[in-house]
């Protein structure tokens, strides 16, 4: 498979720029992977191979790093990302019920993307909004003091 075919030309140029910017700095792998995920929305296999080749590191090492951290995804992600907080404060204030309700509403498991590609549902531990527990973050907006009944209303905004 030729690279430019599946990865857009513009995106590839951006990726190359990032590789150039970081490759001579100490510890370049994680910043480049973060940039790649920002560009593509996830880490496509072709992009991983490309980064490994450009940096002259074995692809296995790149995958080793990428699979270690929760931030990186190898599957395309939905248009909106929901982070459902399961931190301690959210847990004791019913965070699990909120997650269950979202799973039911969106018909996905945590970590998956809805069929229509609108939402990716993620389970996370603490988004630091403990005073508003139970809380979720959709993209960059936090919603606090949720109840199972309010879930539909929040999702309806997207």
């Amino acid at each position, binding site marked *: 498979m030729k690279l430019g075919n599946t990865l857009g030309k513009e995106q590839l140029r951006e990726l190359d720029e990032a590789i150039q910017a970081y490759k001579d700095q*100490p*510890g*370049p*792998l*994680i*910043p480049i*992977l*973060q940039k790649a995920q920002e560009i593509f929305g996830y880490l496509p296999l072709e992009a991983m191979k490309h980064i490994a080749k450009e940096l002259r590191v074995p692809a296995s090492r790149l995958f*080793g*790093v990428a699979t*270690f*951290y*929760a*931030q*990186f995804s190898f599957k395309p992600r939905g248009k909106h990302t929901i*982070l459902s907080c*399961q*931190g*301690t*404060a959210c*847990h*004791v*204030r*019913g965070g699990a*019920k909120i997650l*269950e*309700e979202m799973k*039911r509403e969106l018909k996905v498991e945590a970590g998956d993307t809805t069929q229509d590609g609108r939402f990716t549902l993620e389970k*996370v*531990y*603490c*988004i*630091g*909004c*403990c*005073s*508003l*527990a139970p*809380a979720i973050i959709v993209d*960059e*907006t*936090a*919603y*606090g003091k949720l*109840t*199972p*009944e309010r879930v539909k209303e929040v999702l309806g905004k997207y």
Partner: protein
Amino acid sequence: MTVADLEKIRKRTRTFAEVKAGQVHVVVGMNTCGIASGARETLQSFRDGMKRRGISGKVFQTGCIGMCFEEPLVDIIQPGRPRVTYRHVDADKVERILEEHIEAGGLVEEWALAQFPNGASPLEGVPLYGELPYNSKQQKIVLRKCGFIDPESIDQYIATDGYFALAKALSQMTPEQVIEEVLGSGLRGRGGAGFPTGLKWRATRQAPGSPKYIVCNADEGDPGAFMDRSVLEGDPHSVLEGMLIAGYAIGAQEAYIYVRAEYPVAVRRLQQAIAQAKEYGLIGERILGTDFSFDVKIKMGAGAFVCGEETALLASIEGKRGMPRPRPPFPAQSGLWGKPTNINNVETYSNVPAIVLNGASWYSSFGTENSKGTKVFCITGKVKNSGLIEVPMGIKLREVIFDIGGGILQDRAFKAVQTGGPSGGVLPESLLDLPVDYQELAKAGSIMGSGGVVVMDETTCMADVARYFLTFTQSESCGKCTPCREGLQRMYQILDRICKGKGTPSDVDDLEELARSIKDSSLCGLGQTAPNPVLTVLRYFREEVEAHISQRRCPAGVCPELIRYEIDPQKCKACGICRKKCPAEAIEGAPKAIHRIIQEKCVKCGTCYEVCPTKFSAVYKV
């Protein structure tokens, strides 16, 4: 930039607390909690409303003042009048405040939370800010500027003596004297382990090798903790100043801040603060006309709890899998790229400027024999006043939860308090008079930790809490050492079957034995402390766990497999609310027909129990 220039900025800059005649300053709390409660819309409404009404003045933003439960918070400052703090100011409350408080010179009493008289005669019916029960027992050192300056303005930081500790260290003190001062203050690492900061600095200074590095751990991963986020959002320059002083003391010229990607607001303010400090020459070459040069870079974390462990954090900065390694050698001897490295967390660094400015004996006048100074805590869970506080060490847990925290939500009974996150423990009511102190908490089986305090009430199941922490730690174990990787999973499995009513009589003993071996034999702090929540649950709430096994009963009525919901036909008035709200369509009934829960369909979410009007209270748990 010279010290004289710094002095000029301090003299000419006004914080938003000072207002010119005929002007009004509106200050909106714009930290993450505030924004999540709608502060951005509130801020915009004030800007629009003031413009439309022709009110001259300015709208400012500030960081976290700590009262997250009252957000969005807005302060109105006018010359000759007390500064008034309004609570829960949603965008639709703005017009009335503009009209009645600012234009008419009155007060919207029902929304006013507190006042600072500022030399004017106090308003009647509004408590003084410092006398609010939430504030009166607090002692703010780290948080002293949060909520009182614009975190995005370096001038306001300088106006409140910012960077003068750095100036003092560089011009009047040798690096050794700085270390002595920090050592003498008794400051201990605020990330959780509590190692004396001065000793760490001295070891790094004395270690052979160059260059040396300064690292700031801002990978605040403990669930239930947001102290570091609040400091970075509310007063980012204090962290930079602390790092600069550490760099001077240790002989390092390069620094990294390792910060969680989950904190976008904090990262943005930090980037801005670094850029401003560089522009002023406070970060860069030959700082304040001396030989000292220093550079600070940000490294973004990528979502791994174990990276809060110092050796794992260093591996992550180096671009590797964030796995810890055995110590010694400690980072002070062999850290980043094998060079001597000093790692402290956000709160530790942000204590340093105050210590250098006011001296070691001032700092050590707060706190207890072994634990000096103050500690920032996030008080959350089933407590009325949930937010960010800073208290002198030695304060009792009871004071934190009941005086500052205002007691338990809905006045339910207190059951337990969890400190130290997944590395700490749960403490029962009998220990509420325990002072907050490194040694005392450790004796009780918990730890100080980074500062999360999660309050639990009678409706919290302690077996479920123990399982909860293991869900977290076993999924965050990096997998390098066997006791942590395998052991935590086994512990989780045992607790899971206990919570599901399938436990066996030997389970409790097995849990304890596993917990002790994991503590003794794990490689890093994650595994060595992960059994703490379980051990303390077994120590203080053993009967409750055993009830799940011997009676197949969850006394707190939480574990779904051990409870069911029923509707009392005598009490049900067939109002239909529960039927409409039930997400699983598990309630049958019709207008005027008594409702019934179809147990096969019920997902035990408890919605019916919560929505049934209290005047009926027809839904009950068995």
